[in-house]
């Protein structure tokens, strides 16, 4: 890593700080290493949700493959991901061979992880020789807050976090979040929560007048909403594969 700009001007000031962070990371779990078979499916998925694929970091999970991929196959997979605007940052593979694969492809090795990422982060960090300059902030990603109206034709996407909107969302506008969506004005456009597949995501709004709402791909159109909860304050959540609206 080039460190050119981090010139140490005074020998006793610390130039860096380690901080635990909880970045949203998605796994791309592959059931084949055949790029020719994979390419059209992945490309079709990318075309459906282009905003999602715009430089989204992913961990390639190869543990479901029947046979361990060769280095050449892995490199082809990485190339394919990059062509579709995904950014492979790590690898989950057979722990026996993963170290070598990661070494060559310069990906981080996630193969030895037994526990969810959260537990790893909670583990005490090695104490730095010098105390950190500032106290650690709680590092859950802050929700994206919008205070001006989201107008027809505009798109707002809260990547890796919740979206809070304190203004109307107009018909023809699209609001999306990986987490929950809160709308404190009338919701007249489209709202998509959990776009990365989080089925726990919910949509809360003061007045439901949406064209469409969707959670993790399960959706309801305004036709259904008209019958259920039109102009009501409601929350929408997934129960199994059913998208329910509940009065607030």
């Amino acid at each position, binding site marked *: 890593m080039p460190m050119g700009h981090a010139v140490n001007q005074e020998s006793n000031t610390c130039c860096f700080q380690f901080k635990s962070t909880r970045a949203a990371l998605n796994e791309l779990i592959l059931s084949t290493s055949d790029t020719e078979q994979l390419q059209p499916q992945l490309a079709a998925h990318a075309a459906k949700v282009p905003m999602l694929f715009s430089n989204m970091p992913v961990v390639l999970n190869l543990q479901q493959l029947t046979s361990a991929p060769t280095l050449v196959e892995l490199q082809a997979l990485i190339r394919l991901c990059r062509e579709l605007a995904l950014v492979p940052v790590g690898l989950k593979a057979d722990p026996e061979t993963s170290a070598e694969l990661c070494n060559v492809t310069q990906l981080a090795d996630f193969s030895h992880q037994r526990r969810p990422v959260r537990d790893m982060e909670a583990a005490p960090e090695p104490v730095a020789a010098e105390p950190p300059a500032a106290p650690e902030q709680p590092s859950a990603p802050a929700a994206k807050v919008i205070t001006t109206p989201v*107008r027809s034709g505009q798109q707002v996407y809260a990547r890796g976090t919740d979206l809070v909107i304190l203004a*109307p969302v*107009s018909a*023809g506008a699209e609001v999306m979040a990986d987490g929950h969506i809160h709308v404190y004005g009338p919701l*007249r456009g489209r709202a998509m929560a959990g776009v990365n597949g989080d089925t726990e995501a919910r949509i809360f709004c003061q007045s439901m007048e949406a064209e469409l709402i969707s959670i993790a791909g399960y959706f309801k159109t305004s036709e259904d909403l008209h019958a259920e909860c039109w102009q009501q304050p409601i929350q929408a959540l997934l129960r199994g594969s059913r998208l329910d609206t509940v009065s607030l």
Partner: protein
Amino acid sequence: MAEIIVVTSGKGGVGKTTSSAAIGTGLALKGFKTVLIDFDVGLRNLDLIMGCERRVVYDFVNVINKEATLNQALIRDKRTENLYILPASQTRDKDALSIEGVEAVLNELGESFDYIVCDSPAGIEKGAHLALYFADTAIVVTNPEVSSVRDSDRILGVLQSKSRKAEQGETVKEHLLLTRYNPSRVDAGEMLSVEDVKEILAIPLLGVIPESEAVLKASNQGVPVIMDSDSDAGQAYDDAIARFMGEDREHRFLNVERKGFLSRVFGRKG
């Protein structure tokens, strides 16, 4: 430095040019030195509405291309003092406008004028974008009709994301001008009401201009309708200008009017 006002709508045929002419004239009548710029290059109309089509020699594009000076291109209005018109070119298209060229013209006008009123073309493409890019204030012209309201919503989004003010982290002042309002059709449920439109667009209401025969007549005669002070539309534009200057005037022409003028002046019983 002049205040730059864009009259815009997204949708075509809602009354942008009629409103621009009325607003420009209204500001000039209040004593402000005002220039009206027609941004609808290729579909020049403002000169017709202002009745100065026979006096167009040079146009906006000539000035941008430095083929003429501003003073050569500006047309002085014969009826209203302090009012000037910068016509669009009829033989060119919107690509003849450039952001640098428009900026240079606006800067030069800004030195001597109080208000610059930009009559935007329809759409959200280059012409409309350039018309609104430098605006301090936007007057969004909307008809009480769903497609017009949606297009206005869209243009409001463009204003707050792609204008110079937005790029500098400031906001463009927004005003709603509802035109072609017909209270009896609203009562019949055939037209959106003022309240409906305000609720959807959520911006302050500058004025409601009733659907009026006076508007067509004024257009064809080349006299801005605000000059016709006997007409309902003319009075409504006059009210709108007064509100724009900060005066508090009640909105008129919102309800079906069955009684005559006198009863309105002296109040109604019951």
